[in-house]
């Protein structure tokens, strides 16, 4: 159970991360804000039953499912085939690397992108990611493996261009 104070702490602690998570998935600031708003609304509605230690996990679980639903309905996601157009010529390696990686991120499948974001952005372990995405640990590990290799290959191709 969480009270208003704990809830407000959760807003301070997790709203930014939740927003970034949604934004990277949907590429739409308004939709991402809606996801955050709705996630916290649901948290408040369920405050009597949500374990105070699991607030973050609860929020990301809600957000994850909302994102899937939103992406499916709105079809706002960047299509994988469109994501490859990036000008690397002027990119400075270190400064632009994250930008490049974000483009690479869009090339991943939805589930690969999700597990990678949860892993790298939020530092969740396999079990926690599994709880959020309703996958078992082995599946999570496989998806992360595939995502990493895909990202490496994407990055490798760009490095060869240099």
């Amino acid at each position: 159970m969480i009270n208003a104070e704990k809830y407000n702490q959760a807003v301070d602690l997790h709203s930014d991360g939740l927003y970034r998570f949604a934004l990277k998935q949907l590429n739409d600031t308004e939709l991402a804000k809606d996801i955050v708003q709705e996630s916290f609304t649901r948290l408040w509605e369920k405050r009597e039953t949500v374990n105070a230690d699991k607030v973050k996990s609860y929020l990301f679980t809600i957000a994850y499912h909302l994102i899937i639903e939103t992406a499916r309905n709105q079809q706002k996601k960047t299509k994988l085939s469109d994501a490859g157009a990036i000008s690397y010529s002027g990119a400075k390696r270190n400064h632009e690397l994250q930008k490049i990686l974000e483009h690479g991120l869009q090339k991943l499948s939805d589930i690969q992108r999700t597990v990678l974001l949860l892993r790298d952005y939020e530092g969740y372990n396999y079990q926690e990611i599994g709880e959020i995405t309703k996958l078992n640990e082995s599946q999570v590990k496989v998806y992360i493996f595939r995502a990493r290799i895909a990202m490496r290959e994407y990055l490798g191709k760009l490095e060869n261009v240099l």
Partner: protein
Amino acid sequence: MSVEINRNNYEAYLIDYLDGNTNKETEMAIQLFLIQNPDIEETFAMLKESKFEKPEFENASVSFEHLKKFYNGKINVSNLDEYLVDELENNLNNEQKNDLNIYFEYFPEAKKQSELLKKTVLSPDFAIVYDDKKKLKKQSKAPIYYITRSAIAAAAVLLIMVLIYNNFSEPKKPILSNNERRTETKVETTVNSQSTLPKEKPVSENKLSVKFLPKTEVKIQQMPSQNVDIDFINIAEQKQELAQHTTIENEELLLMKTSDFPAANNDFSDMNSKPIIENDNLNENKKTKEFKTIGQWFASATKKIAGKYKTKNTEDDQINTSDFAALAAGAINEITGSRIRITEKSSPSNPFAFGIESEKFEFK
């Protein structure tokens, strides 16, 4: 013949000949020169004999392969990526880490792949923030507010109890045997409240009177003797003071679950409505009341208490309202062992609505 061998240049031709570096034309020219110059032919014969032949052992195959070092660990091309990702994910044990490092020594390309993989780790852009946090937040309540709420909850509990007692105090008068009449008398003396007790009855244990001090916390607990005790602790004096002691014996009050509890939309004029009594049974050992509804007076009373603290039509007020109602219900539940629940039924058009559900509860 273009090759011209003479006594001034024959040495070079002869050496080439001995080394096998001459073509047919040159060989013919050399042989002709030797015929024409027999003295040189002798020298040539000597040269031929002095030529070192390739020793036998030089043709033998000598291998130094055994000196080479080969990687013989568990990593191979097919599982290399797994090792690299596990390295990145920090999933390798020390033995595996060592194995991978050895592999890197043999296959530097694998090390490059490892470095490339490490670059794929994403970092959140902390410049991206959710800037509407204020809208998400709920208004916190000050501590003094909780004290007020406690008092209100107690008031709600007592109000309801008084209403219940009022109904107890006005039982139908069944036709009773003499024995039953004695029982009835006993019941009447043990179930009364201050507001309804006939003046001629003894009231020492049953009188219910409550004072609210400015800073009073209410502690309510069910005693092991199954009596209902309400203790008031004066926080200011840090002294527990038993204000009153109310005993209800051999009584059982049943509130049947109904589906027609009105939500808070009820008009406040229902505040004084009494529950509709369906059955009112009295026998030797217990007295039972069954209510068809408890909704109107209960819902209205609770909402009125909460409603007093509405200040404006905001989401926070809605929360306060339901909190109050839940608090009051919780206090009642604690006293009675009942299961009254407050459920939110708010909607955009009616942000203050909440429902009340009850299963049966009973005094024992």
